[in-house]
């Protein structure tokens, strides 16, 4: 997973830094030519800041996202499912490691990012603030949320910042296996016993709203958004990504005889666009502000893990305490 498409707006804007106009023009020309920006290259202050936010939130989403699925590893039915789910969730934690490293190239240490996560300063994908109640939730997360994340990550892997793109390419490769895992569980439940089907339908009903929220509300086409798109930080609009997801996956869900809890959802024949009812953006913003069903629990678990493991980190850092200044 799990990079949420949506990076919430900041409550307060930081001081605007005016970059050297010549450097800026050269930078923009490079990006326009499709060149990748590397860590030691000059970059606009705002470019660096936005990328740190985006990659950091993506990394947080990976480790927080491991929590709802992780609780199902011990409960997964049978060896095949257990082994696949363990490998999948392990991949997600591995993605966090890759992404924190990519963000570190921009100058923010992993410890600082994790501190910002547990202090609530830095966000993660809203979708993980919902509970995974049954085994069917594992199917919906693994199939549809991973699919949504792939739409977002494939777009971002074509962005301008080299280390992020390279991390994303590898992540997408692994995600495609996660999608297979999720799809397999999904199909087994959809074509299984009445109990299995009803579990799946129930999970789908509960997750549809967070899935529609996944890419965020329609972008304001502000100067700011346009700049980020010109710099290839933001690669597609939230609406475009949502449309792409709906086109790919709604038919697959419907083919299995499952329904979606939105009476207005349909493809408009003229425009080719998907129309849908209001997915309750008020709830979306409430969850971002920390009032979702699991925000407190997720952060509490993460915080407990940090606190309980602090002695290990401290001891490991001191392993090199007998540092000797090299000669010359």
């Amino acid at each position: 997973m799990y990079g949420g498409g949506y990076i919430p707006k900041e409550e307060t804007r930081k001081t605007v830094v005016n970059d050297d106009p010549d450097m800026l023009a050269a930078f923009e020309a490079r990006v326009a030519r499709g060149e990748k920006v590397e860590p030691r290259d000059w970059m606009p202050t705002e470019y660096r800041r936005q990328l740190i936010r985006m990659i950091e939130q993506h990394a947080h989403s990976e480790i927080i996202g491991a929590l709802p699925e992780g609780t199902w590893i011990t409960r997964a039915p049978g060896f095949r499912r257990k082994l696949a789910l363990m490998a999948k969730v392990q991949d997600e934690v591995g993605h966090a490691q890759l992404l924190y490293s990519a963000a570190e190239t921009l100058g923010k240490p992993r410890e600082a990012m994790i501190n910002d996560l547990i202090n609530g300063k830095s966000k993660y994908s809203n979708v993980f603030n919902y509970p995974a109640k049954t085994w069917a939730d594992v199917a919906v997360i693994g199939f549809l949320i991973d699919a949504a994340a792939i739409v977002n990550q494939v777009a971002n892997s074509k962005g301008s910042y080299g280390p992020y793109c390279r991390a994303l390419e590898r992540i997408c490769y692994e995600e495609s296996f996660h999608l297979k895992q999720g799809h397999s569980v999904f199909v087994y439940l959809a074509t299984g016993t009445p109990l299995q089907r009803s579990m799946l339908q129930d999970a789908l009903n509960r997750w549809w709203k967070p899935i529609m929220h996944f890419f965020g509300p329609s972008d304001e086409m502000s100067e700011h958004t346009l700049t980020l798109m010109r710099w290839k930080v933001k690669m597609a609009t939230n609406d475009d990504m949502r449309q792409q997801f709906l086109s790919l996956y709604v038919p697959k869900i419907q083919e299995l005889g499952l329904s979606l809890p939105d009476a207005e959802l349909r493809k408009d024949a003229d425009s080719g666009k998907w129309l849908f009812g209001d997915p309750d953006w008020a709830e979306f913003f409430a969850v971002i502000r920390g009032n979702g069903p699991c925000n407190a629990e997720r952060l509490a678990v993460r915080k407990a893990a940090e606190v309980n493991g602090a002695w290990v980190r401290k001891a490991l850092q001191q392993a090199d305490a007998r540092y000797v200044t090299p000669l010359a």
Partner: protein
Amino acid sequence: MNIPHKSFPIDDAHREPLRHLLTALADDHLILGHRHSEWTGLGPILEEDIAFSSIAQDQMGHALGFYSLLHEHLDAPDPDIHAFTRQETDFSCCQLVEWPIGDYDFSLTRHLFFDLAAGLRMETLSLSNFKPLAQLATKIRGEVKYHMFHAKTMVSQLGKSSDETARARMQTAINRQFGLALGMFEPRVGEQLLDEANIAPIESKWRDRWLEALNAVLDGTGLHIPDPERIEPVYGGRRGYHTEYLQPLLNEMTEVFRLDPQAEW
């Protein structure tokens, strides 16, 4: 793990002892694999999350391998049914693997104790006269080698750390679970017969080699084992006597499967 399906001739007298050996190995790996998997998302550093998760997957794979041998050669049910539908008293894992993950010091020490033993067991079993087991043990041995790289690295870094808390925590973890660790070597039913047939040694031989190897691993780390003569081994697991921690884990492991054991999941 694919094990070629060939029935290998087994002497009637060896069937029961072999069943005991393989079930003990399978159950140990299954339960500890589940325990290690509980670190997913909770490790002290991301890299440790990933390491424990990786080891857990290997162990689950090893368990599947042992259950498959039981299924193919000793008339046991299919591995899924065997692993996920038995009563608690039918499990023969040692009590060491049942304990909750606790803090990282407990889990890391258990990982060292267990994988050190597993490595020695697989080394001997790779020469077993029961060839299907020898093949499987050879494969597992290659994986356990990496588990030991990990365990040794972490134990020695924490043991040698200039941080007093870390050293004290590690030594305490060793002391506290030493009796449980000795319980890994509880004598098995019919072990003498398998030893004579060069199928598997008696447990006390493995224990002696384990103590020797453990001393070597801890040498130079500042950590040490307590006097094994003064520590009572915690036996019972191999005969179906378990801690209060096993049943809740079994309930959890089989929660979904039990919703409808006939369904395909």
